[in-house]
């Protein structure tokens, strides 16, 4: 096994263990707390994953785990972004299943956040191309 493959495999294992620990924490404790705490924790965990992805992209371990064109997408930053995406979707599911919030508010808030995200990303991309 060459040096790059070993480094990539060990980094991948580290990521797998860390993500499993995080999901174990979420599945063990989040069902026991109130819906608002669950929502806030999921949003914060999603942000934590996203920020970590941004940070790790520019570091030495930011390279794809394995060499070769087929697995070039499997990079640490992408894994963290996917974890952030999962947290965001889970947070939305928690929000939509809340009894405290009326249905029109849930729909309106979800649309504002969803469309807001799309517009914010589009505007950011436009500014970069200028």
């Amino acid at each position, binding site marked *: 096994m060459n040096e790059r493959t070993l480094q990539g495999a060990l980094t991948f294992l580290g990521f797998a263990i860390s993500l499993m620990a995080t999901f174990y*924490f979420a599945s063990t*404790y*989040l069902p*026991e*707390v*109130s819906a608002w*705490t669950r929502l*806030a*924790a*999921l949003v*914060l*965990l999603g*942000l*934590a*994953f*996203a*920020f*970590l992805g*941004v*940070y790790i992209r520019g570091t030495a371990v930011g390279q794809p785990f394995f060499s070769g064109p087929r697995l070039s997408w499997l990079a640490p930053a992408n894994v963290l972004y996917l974890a952030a995406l999962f947290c965001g979707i889970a947070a939305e599911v928690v929000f939509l299943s809340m*009894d*405290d919030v009326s249905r029109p508010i849930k729909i309106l808030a979800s649309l504002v956040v969803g469309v807001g995200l799309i517009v914010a990303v589009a505007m950011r991309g436009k500014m970069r191309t200028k």
Partner: protein
Amino acid sequence: MALGASIACAALAVALVGVDLAYNIEAKLEYRAKDGSWVTMDQSGSEDDWYARPVAAGSCGGPEWRLVVHNGQPWSQTLDVQVTYDRYDNSAPSPFRESWNLPSGASRSHEFTIPAATFTSSTGTDDGKTPPPSLWVTAQVGRDIHLSGCATAKVPEAAA
């Protein structure tokens, strides 16, 4: 910058969950045994497990019950508290429904005795494990806490 924000978000998420778990509303449903002591109804396991337990083996309470609620949160809470008798024939009236304002750290309880007539007119339950005359005592505290326990007309000796 990004690493700091990531650590801060993760730490805040864990702290939020920790605080929520540490400072919680606690409620328990208890029945009085023959020796006068209060026995807490075991609510462990999933609802399906709980209902599947062999109630006939002696884990039912008697007619005297109490619901105890403790506000462990750092702020006061107003909670809708409700106790019902859940009978197979669904004809038992809802005996208790109140709104309790509990300051931080305060406890409050509600004692109630199931009338003998409620037992004798009950047709029992359809699970085949709860012998009539019996019924389920159910309590709801706020939105999230649901408790239940099997009650029979006979006062149990002590904890099952």
